[in-house]
């Protein structure tokens, strides 16, 4: 009887079922995808250039080697990135100047793509606290970790929070937390990092990284999250996120600074 009641009460609204189906999708001409990050923490610019492929093509994405990638700082001084092969390019020991704008130029067989990103200064994290929550709907209980920091007053700030559990980073598009201060400017922020796997147990080591990013990148990630990992089905009009690359390239150039905190749950 108990199961019968449960069935009516809960599954009445959750009769849904899922299955993998075949869909006939068009094939498209490959487009250039440039994923570029400048991390102030290790003073390194990292770029990966790939091409789009057909949706059900299960080979790794095609890479582009032989491109010329140049980063230019606010004073106009250019520096060329070193090709590493496999579509990757890198420039290390590139000293950051906070609150200045960097320009990245990529030339691939005569076509030039340009993107600009402003490197914000880092916002320091305060120590992480955690709290036990009981489980519900059949899930086990566990600890929720809180992201704590003082939001800088009177500036518009945009952040990506990345969580790591026992050294394993959850940096994928669907795992990161995006936050801005539209509703919270200048406040002392204490925010639980909820998520399907964000309940932790005794003994876990948790690290939180808070990346300060510029507004374009924030908007890019908001749009990216709305289509990644199956989310595209929720939107009436999923579309490609608006990239800071010109010339119709996909991807982004993100210059960011960060701060970290960690805690062991005891």
């Amino acid at each position, binding site marked *: 009887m108990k199961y019968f009641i*449960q069935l009516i*009460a809960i599954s009445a609204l959750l009769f849904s079922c899922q299955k993998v189906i075949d869909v006939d999708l068009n094939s498209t001409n490959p487009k250039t995808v440039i994923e570029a990050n400048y991390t102030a923490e290790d003073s390194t610019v990292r770029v990966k250039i790939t091409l789009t492929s057909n949706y*059900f093509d299960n080979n790794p994405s095609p890479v582009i080697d032989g491109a010329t990638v140049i980063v230019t700082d606010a004073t106009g001084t250019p520096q060329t990135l070193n090709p590493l092969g496999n579509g990757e390019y890198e420039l290390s020991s590139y000293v950051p100047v906070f609150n200045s704008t960097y320009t990245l130029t990529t030339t691939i067989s005569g076509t030039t793509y340009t993107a600009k990103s402003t490197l914000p200064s880092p916002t320091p994290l305060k120590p992480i606290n955690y709290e036990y929550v009981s489980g519900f709907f059949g899930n086990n209980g566990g600890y929720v970790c809180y992201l704590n920091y003082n939001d800088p007053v009177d500036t518009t700030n945009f952040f990506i929070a990345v969580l790591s559990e026992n050294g394993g980073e959850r940096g994928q*598009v669907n795992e990161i937390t995006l936050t801005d201060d539209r509703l919270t400017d200048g406040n002392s922020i204490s925010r639980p990092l909820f998520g399907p796997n964000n309940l932790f147990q005794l003994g876990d080591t948790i690290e939180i990284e808070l990346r300060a990013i510029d507004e374009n990148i924030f908007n890019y990630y*908001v749009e990216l999250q709305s289509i990644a990992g199956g989310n595209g089905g929720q939107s009436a*009009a999923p579309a*490609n*996120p608006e990239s800071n690359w010109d010339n119709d390239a996909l991807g982004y150039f993100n210059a960011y600074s960060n701060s970290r905190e960690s805690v062991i749950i005891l």
Partner: protein
Amino acid sequence: MKFILTILLVFFSLLTYSQDFTISGSVTDATNGEDLFGAVIKVKELGNTGTNSNSYGFYSLTLPQGDYTLIYRSTGFETQEKKIHLFSDTIIDVELNIPKDVQQIGEVIVSAEKENDNITSSGMNVTRFDPKSIETIPVLFGEKDIMKTLQLTPGVKTAGEGNSGFFVRGGGADQNLILLDEAPVYNASHLLGFFSVFNSDAIKDVALYKSGIPAEYGGRASSVVDVKMREGNNKKFGASGGLGLISSRLTIEAPIVKDKGSFIISGRRSYADLFLKLQKDEALKDTKLFFYDLNVKANYKITKKDRIFLSGYFGRDKFELSDKFGFSWGNATGTLRWNHIINDKLFSNTTVIRSTFDYEFSVGSGDEAFGIRSSIKDWNIKQDFTYYRNKNNTIKFGINAIHHTFKPGSLTGSNESFNEIILHTRYALELGAYIQNEMKIGTRFNIMYGLRYSGFNYMGRGTDYQFDENGNEIGKQYYSSWESIKYYQGLEPRLSASYILTEKNSIKISYGRNFQYLHQLSNATSSSPTDNWVPSSKNVKPQIADQIAAGYYHNFKDNMYRLSTEIYYKHLSNQIDYRNGAALILNDQVEGELVFGKGRAYGLEVLIEKNKGKFTGWISYTLSRSLRTFDEINNGKEFSARQDRIHDIAIVLMYRVSKSIALSGTWIYYTGDAVTFPSGKYELNGTYIPYYTERNGYRMPDYHRMDLGFTWYMKERKKFEHNLNISIYNVYARENAFSITFEEDENDPTKTVAVQTTLFKLIPSITYNFKLK
């Protein structure tokens, strides 16, 4: 102004002098005293001459002196004839009886002998239902739902499972004016769209206008759904109710003073959460998930010429996960009406309406708590007149003013991470004035022509923002209370005409223009109570729909079968879509997220109905397109609207096997919605991201489903009747796609797959209904 004068002249040049007398009165149901709306009053000797009772049962007919036979007729009632010698103004009140043989055989719908009113009426065909006539149609979870039944008729497309929204002739889901006793209902859904807010027990009549909309209606671009509540039995006490899987209903009605006034109270509540209380799990115990609604109405005849009505609707949905999360929303409407018969030719209706919708989120408790609230509230005053000029002309005119208060959102709470945010309250005044004449010319030609003036004053107190072409704010201006920020106005001509070819054939045409000044913002696939309504402003222009339609109607086999075929073309201006990643909630500059374009829709609709006998039902087929063009979307190329379903079929059959058993079945098929799928993918941060090339360039799989219903009318007592209804939703368990998502394979992240989610496979349900007589 010259134009308006000309129009007025056209109306009143029709005034003529003759030795005419007026017959007026009311048409009511003999069993419970309810007014009969749309009853036909015909003059036997004069062929095409006649009138219809209005929604208060009132009719008026002016004829030259003479001897006549008046025929009173309404679907489901015995026809009455009255012979009169007309030599002075006369009042005739008529009570129609339900035929005895119906009570005995128990046929569901009985039509009077000569049912060709669909052929001879002047307006384009109106889709009308009386909830009683469709009570055996199988429905999801056994919840009778008049809105779902409307979606089985041509030109009306469901927004899909888990969605009570609907699209009429290619228009948007916010383009339907849904009225409950004249009060606009802003969100007609319960439980996130699985049920509509209309409790069938409290409803007398539903009419859907999809073209040739009469000039008395205004404010939405595509259609009008006019829902009227019952008045309650003014002869004796009655109670009825039902027990279902999801909810239970109870209705009580009684006279206030016999034959003078009555009231009805009808309540409904779902109880999934009551089962949760039985759970051991603490969190489950504290979970709330329910909706309720309450319909109340009272009416009283103060004098022979004055009658007042007070009606109200209160409904609410609540979803709470102990103290962690809460979400609730609801509508409330109230209507106070005064019917006054000024003289036997002039009928007046004065109405004051309050209409509100709000939603509320709350998260956390104590220091952590914060909440988001939003609402829309209206005060609405209407004055309508019907002037029964003579046997060939019925003139309606009136005025209307609505004061809207929009609270787009506020964020408050004790959680100190959040700043209190209260978006600017916005105000608007919506005005309307109309005049319309329904005219008979000779015995074959009927014409209804009218004009509506509408105005919309978006006004202070408030801040108006200006945006550049990319949606970035470039300026703002503050306006004080009642100061006009932007005034829009328009003339809405409405015209429909019919020509009776023979007793069994007619053709009709119509043209109508409709302005819509309120817009609902929604950029998700499923509708949500958080889809805010916003007023027209400097940035958002009113939506305008122009529609022409033509129809051919044919009855055959002694009016046993009716065929109607209609074609239409609709042009939509100032349609709204959204920028990529638009933030629609708690955004004071939400208008910067919008883009504007145009649309067009056209189609062919065929309906074959059988309304008589043991075997009744209809087959509906729609062939249609709905397209949109926006400069910012799809590189400016025209694309399919989501509801651009090419084929749409519904078959509804009801068979009364015997007095105690009724069977029913429905089958639905439609082309899948237009949808945006990725045409490629790329890698970012080690994740595959879908790559999109065009808007709505793909199709969901075709949808089809069969439902069956079985109703057992158990032994009837003198004072009591009851029945048991069993319905099976999706009998052959078709896995219809609710959504298709593109994601990495759970087992192998290097692969990407398409995953289809199906909401409802075969779902049986059982409902017990009773009635005390």
